């Protein structure tokens, strides 16, 4: 296996982890915004309790993606940042507002109104940031961003303003909300009523996801022909089957209140969706003009980066294990919302 390929795998794996962890944190923000009913404040407290210790770490996966991209595939980074300048700037604003609002709400001295105001900002930025991230991935797949001699020639609105990209954005939103609600059923397993609230939300989001997924698929035919062709390739049936089984298993497990199973199935579903997108788009970073090979840094740089990432993984894996064991391990989940 070439070093370039290993680094491409690092990008995909980081994106999957980002979706599974950071994505779910955004989804948590959405449920904070949509908290309703007599237990709205308890729902918010449960969400806060679930994400507070881990969201900073979860966010770093996105930075890893960015760093690998510009270290190992520098021209691709330049082209993406140029073509998607507008939505990515909005993503940044969303990231800053989400982080700031979350800590302001949590740590500001409580006055009667301020927590709600920051809660609203936290929720709204959690809602639109994943939409914009989905939009960007859709744009890269659409084939409408054209690159000649390393220069983006289709301006600053190509791809991400089209129906396909917008459908991808909606899909990302729905997926993260579904993930978050499913995780929260496990986190609130000790509280029957809260758990029921999140179960209902997870089921609703999971069911609502189906038509959006269908819409993405339909729009891909005209909006991202390369992806559409890829999704009908030889590797596609088993992967689509796995994705569908995982999706149904997640819903079934939610229905039968086997929440840990539901969480695992939902995570598998999300991982499969990203893997399918990556396989369909491969070997392109930006369909149809820029491949990973075109953009790769010299071999010695890639080799060194591979070593860095191998060493980094040796440090990170046990650290993450420890973090999640302390906060999400058995015994930790049953605890009620903390201070």
């Amino acid at each position, binding site marked *: 296996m070439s070093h370039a390929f290993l680094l491409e795998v690092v990008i995909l794996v980081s994106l999957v982890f980002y979706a599974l962890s950071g994505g779910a944190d955004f989804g948590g923000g959405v449920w904070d915004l949509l908290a309703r009913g007599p237990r709205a404040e308890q729902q918010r407290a449960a969400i806060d309790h679930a994400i507070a210790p881990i969201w900073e770490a979860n966010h770093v996966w996105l930075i890893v993606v960015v760093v690998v991209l510009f270290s190992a595939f520098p021209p691709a980074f330049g082209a993406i940042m140029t073509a998607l300048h507008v939505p990515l700037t909005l*993503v940044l604003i969303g990231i800053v507002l989400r982080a700031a609002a979350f800590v302001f709400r949590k740590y500001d001295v409580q006055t009667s109104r301020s927590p709600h105001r920051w809660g609203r900002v936290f929720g709204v930025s959690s809602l639109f940031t994943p939409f914009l991230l989905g939009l960007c991935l859709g744009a890269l797949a659409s084939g409408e961003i054209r690159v000649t001699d390393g220069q983006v020639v289709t301006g600053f609105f190509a791809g991400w303003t089209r129906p396909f990209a917008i459908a991808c954005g909606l899909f990302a939103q729905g997926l993260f909300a579904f993930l978050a609600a499913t995780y929260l059923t496990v986190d609130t397993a000790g509280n029957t009523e809260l758990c029921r609230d999140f179960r209902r939300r997870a089921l609703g989001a999971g069911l609502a996801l189906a038509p959006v997924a269908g819409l993405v698929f339909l729009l891909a035919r005209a909006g991202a022909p390369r992806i559409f062709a890829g999704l009908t390739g030889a590797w596609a049936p088993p992967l689509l089957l796995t994705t569908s089984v995982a999706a149904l298993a997640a819903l079934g497990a939610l229905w039968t209140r086997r929440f840990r199973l539901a969480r695992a199935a939902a995570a598998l579903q999300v991982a499969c969706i990203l893997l399918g997108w990556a396989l369909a788009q491969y070997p392109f970073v930006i369909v149809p003009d820029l491949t990973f090979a075109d953009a790769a840094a010299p071999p010695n740089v890639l080799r060194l980066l591979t070593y860095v990432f191998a060493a980094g993984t040796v440090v990170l894996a046990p650290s993450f294990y420890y973090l999640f064991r302390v906060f999400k391990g058995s015994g930790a989940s049953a605890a009620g919302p903390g201070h």
Partner: protein
Amino acid sequence: MNDLLFARSQMALSLAFHIVFAVIGMAMPVLMVIAEARHLRTRDPIDLELCKRWARGTAVLFAVGAASGTVLSFELGLLWPAFMDLAGGIIGMPFSLEGFAFFTEAIFLGLYLYGWNRMGPRAHLGAGIIVALSGLASAVFVLTANAWMNAPAGFTLTDGRVTAIDPVAAMLNPASLQQVVHMTLAAYLAVGFGVAGVHAWFLLRSRAHAFHRRALRIALGMAVLCAPLQIVSGDRIAKMVARIQPAKFAAMEGHYRTMARAPITLGGLADDDAMVVRGGIEIPAMLSVLAHGRADAEVTGLEDIPRTDWPNTKLVHLAFDVMVGCGFALLALAIWVSVSWLRRRDPGPWLLRALVAAAPLGFIAIEAGWMVTELGRQPWIIYGIMRTADAVTPMRGLVAPFAAITALYLLLTVVVVLVLRRMFMATSPAAGVP
């Protein structure tokens, strides 16, 4: 203003905003760890209370720092795609290492802030030590990447194409060591005096307050240690700049004419057209000594540098003098504090007042220092290799993202100040009993 200037302003603003939170995120864990280690040894509840309160403030500031750091990592490409295209492969390695350091920092900060009741006391302290160390590592890696922009190394440029990349040589470029040392000390110095200033303010109201006295002592311990070291480091980094970036050095000092026994000009406004500094104080031969260690050494002036390669002399000279002025003011304060300690006296009201007044000086010095580094490198984004104007994005209408980021950061600055103020006021524990 044109698009290039908007792009530069947006980058400058993003850096200026982020650096404050970055140094706090780097240095506060050191103070927290000291307080917690004291608590483990002495079992004094004041130390524990102090550590927990510092941790709450740090949680807020770290979150803003992490988000604004993300903004910067994207802005490298959003604003300077051609720069990243050329430099990505060369300085990607320190950025990747920084990514892992930051990951470690975020993981263990989560454990530290929320793990009080879930981990043993030693494991908890260990998490804090890892946060402090990975914060330091993060800073070291990022600084080597910035140093590379000042002293590009580890590659060959042929016909505009980069070949023979050696990322390790790039990381260990001639400017790395001095920049790393100077900025690391700056972070601990600024945060030490900044925190000391806050607690000094409370002590002026309630002099016997054990909680704030302890806080003051720990914070000053860090600051007083760093202050003299920073002056030494400043001398070393100035000599390095004189050697490898003569244009930046000349702009810093407002030095126009190449000469031996060059005088240093303190203060004053540089006038490029007349090639003089107006209103400054001259000390004969001092610049030759500072730059090269000998009074008869020749110091290159701006006259020997093509006019198109001059930085903004007025701003760079001004920023440099502000930085140096703040540095020496803090050194004087550190001496004052040391003398009061040697006499085994508690800080008196005048010293406390001075500490309150000096609280922002370290941060002002950091901002001014970054102005010297970045403005002094202009018109280059990679010194001698790539001009900033050639690196800017083809995107038009950059006034829009600039305005958006400016508005966002202004809002956040106001809110952070209000939130911290409320935290300080509401949580100042009663005297003696925390």
